[in-house]
């Protein structure tokens, strides 16, 4: 069928402000939205800018706003966003990050917040066995959070960031949880300084938009709440609550 892609364009060299441009493409209902974008890029307009790589939802390159919802173009099938000839799909860059070109945004701030939670195993005890022993149950405690591909869909979906751009954001908190819930990690104290501050975990108001947008099915909101509880428990234990 023939559908219309209505794409936000912006070229900082010549444009004062972003504007929309329409492209008509012929695609099948089971094709990926990314396939449609590639058709435009290869055969209609080489100047269209967007990131992409794996084409099957595992690298996090092509997160964008698709008809107002955040997600991956390569994990969205045409039939989910257009049903018949002439249907329009609107594509915009992710929110809260400066647009650099068309659908490409600057993710520096997103990655800075991610790095701030010390997203690496902290444990300098020597390993008694060859590997650190961890039970299957312990391993499952943080399982879903290990799937994060840092696509920033959740970040763009979060209503809290609209008013508070300093909020740490869902992905960074979920990645902090990935380590503090890992029985092998000893870094809770070190991460507390980042998590337990006004713009750390606390601004989250359980809108669940992050969880709904996550292409890796991570229970982000739940993990944020668990992180909050771990912090409270820790403070109670220390008696300073």
């Amino acid at each position: 069928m023939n559908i219309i892609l209505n794409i936000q364009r912006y070229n900082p060299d010549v444009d004062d402000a972003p504007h929309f441009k329409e492209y008509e493409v012929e695609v099948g209902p089971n094709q990926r939205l990314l396939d449609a974008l590639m058709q435009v890029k290869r055969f209609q307009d080489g100047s269209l800018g967007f990131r992409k790589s794996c084409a099957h939802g595992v690298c996090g390159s092509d997160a964008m706003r698709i008809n107002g919802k955040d997600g991956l173009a390569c994990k969205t099938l045409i039939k989910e966003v257009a049903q018949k000839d002439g249907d329009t799909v609107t594509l915009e860059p992710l929110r809260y990050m400066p647009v650099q070109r068309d659908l490409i945004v600057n993710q520096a701030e997103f990655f800075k917040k991610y790095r701030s939670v010390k997203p690496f195993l902290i444990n300098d005890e020597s390993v008694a066995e060859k590997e650190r022993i961890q039970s299957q149950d312990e391993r499952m405690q943080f399982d879903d959070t290990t799937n994060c591909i840092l696509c920033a869909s959740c970040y763009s979906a979060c209503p809290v960031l609209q008013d508070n751009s300093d909020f740490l954001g869902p992905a960074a908190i979920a990645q902090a949880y990935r380590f503090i819930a890992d029985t092998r990690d000893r870094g809770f104290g070190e991460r507390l300084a980042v998590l337990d501050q006004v713009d750390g975990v606390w601004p989250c108001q359980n809108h669940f938009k992050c969880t709904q947008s996550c292409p890796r099915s991570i229970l982000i909101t739940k993990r944020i709440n668990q992180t909050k509880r771990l912090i409270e428990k820790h403070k109670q234990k220390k008696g300073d609550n």
Partner: protein
Amino acid sequence: MVHQFDTVIVGSGGAGLYAALEASQQSKTAVLSKLYPIRSHTGAAQGGISAALGNVEEDKPEWHAFDTVKGGDYLVDQQAANILTEEAVQAVYDLENRGLPFNRTPEGRIDQRRFGGHTRNFGEGPVRRACYAADRTGHMILQTLYQQCIKNEVAFFDEFQVVDLLLDGTTTQGVVAVELATGELHVFAAKAVLFATGGFGRIFKITSNAYANTGDGPAVCARRGIPLEDMEFYQFHPTGIMGLGILISEAVRGEGGILRNREGERFMQRYSPTLLDLAPRDIVARSILTEIRAGQGIRGDRKIDDYVHLDATHLGKAVLSSKLPDITGFCKTYLGIDPAETPIPVLPTAHYAMGGIPTDVHGRVIMDGTGTIVRGLYAAGECACVSVHGANRLGTNSLLDLVVFGRRAGQHIGDYVKQADMPQPNATAADEARAFIDRLTDGSSGPHGGHITDEMQTTMMEKVGIYRNQKEMQAAVDDIQALRQRYRSVRVQDTAKPFNTDLLEIIELGNLLDLSLLTAAAALDRRESRGAHSREDFPARDDDNWLKHSLAYLEGDTVRLDYKAVDTSIWEPKPRTY
């Protein structure tokens, strides 16, 4: 702009990041990557990383080495395979110690599962050797290594695409890169350069590889006079999702999945009585094609896009969701089926380059058949050819290759740069790259790259695919030459400097065309069948004449082929049956 580093690492997949971790401890190191590091295709690897830990049953590195050699149809350099499999054990423990969340045994140790071609006691039967984190092993390796790089404050230049290598005779001087954000050219002067740019599956139409897998490192080296080794050996993975090429990991068969033809028959029984569905990939891919050609595909029309079934319905939802969750998700998303209920329609998909930039076991690049080393130049990972994969790689051995040889290269670089002088590339270093880009962007009219890409991929898929013959490969060489000719008049449509992805993709297309030519020419020259290279006109392996690595030199528009010996110092080549 000119930068100076002791070490420049090009690529931030598993191989580049591991090398960076090592090299950055001893030298001023920069990692240049055209993708954000965590977007690298290592993150797509699913099934596992092999090491003879013996956590669930007896296993030995020696058995693993033998399987690697036999799996590679004896084109593997055997001492290198020994290093790979012996260092595997510690490498996997190191990853775990650094935080990698492996699946666990009931005792809390790293769990292991079966994979194609990995056997106990020199071929007696399948062994559980693949360490895994669900079907996201590559993702976890990439994440863990990136996390460690953050911890160790490694310096990254994200979205810098390397377009040229600077050599002074046989000494490395650095690289030239385009910065995506600005379109500016940067010269990175460096004592040591490591290429870790990954695979080039995008020369083929149907592939498991990412858009970014365009073989930039090997192509840049080839244009600078370095031969590429064993380019004729390209692996087709037996089970890609029909039509899309998205990979369905061998782990599905490792967990018990079965390939079936239209009769529902487990046809691998006829081709590989001992290992069945877990025979090495070249054998399984050929078996599938043979079934299809015999009218035993699911449609039964003998057409090239007919398919077979990968049946995982008997594994149960619990196994699928705990051990193969992503595969299950891919089937649901892209096919609309649940593999617990419906068999998966699969076809071979272009997957892995056994060949690449020739190196020794320290990752040093070798520029001829006599072992001459390019000072300061290194390669590791899929873009390199050590050679531990020979004519056909075993599943799980690539992730292993990345960590073992990525680390070895990083360590060797650390030592090398201490005694090397800082090169001084002259002011004209970037001129060639600049002239090339200026031509592409000179504003004159010319064809766009889209159609050339399409035609190249179709030609390579149809004529240099699983089964090959003289006539078709010659036609492929001619076609690719014609496409390279057309490429000379290509122009970019995007006239902006910042984020000109159009320009960068057209540069990538040039690389793909050069690698297509080298692959087709090397394949045409090898008149035998071995591993992934199977010729209808020369169906047998011919050790008397062809037990040797090829070296393909790109000399302008022609390819010159040379050969060098294989290290067979441990096991004598034998017929390969499973």
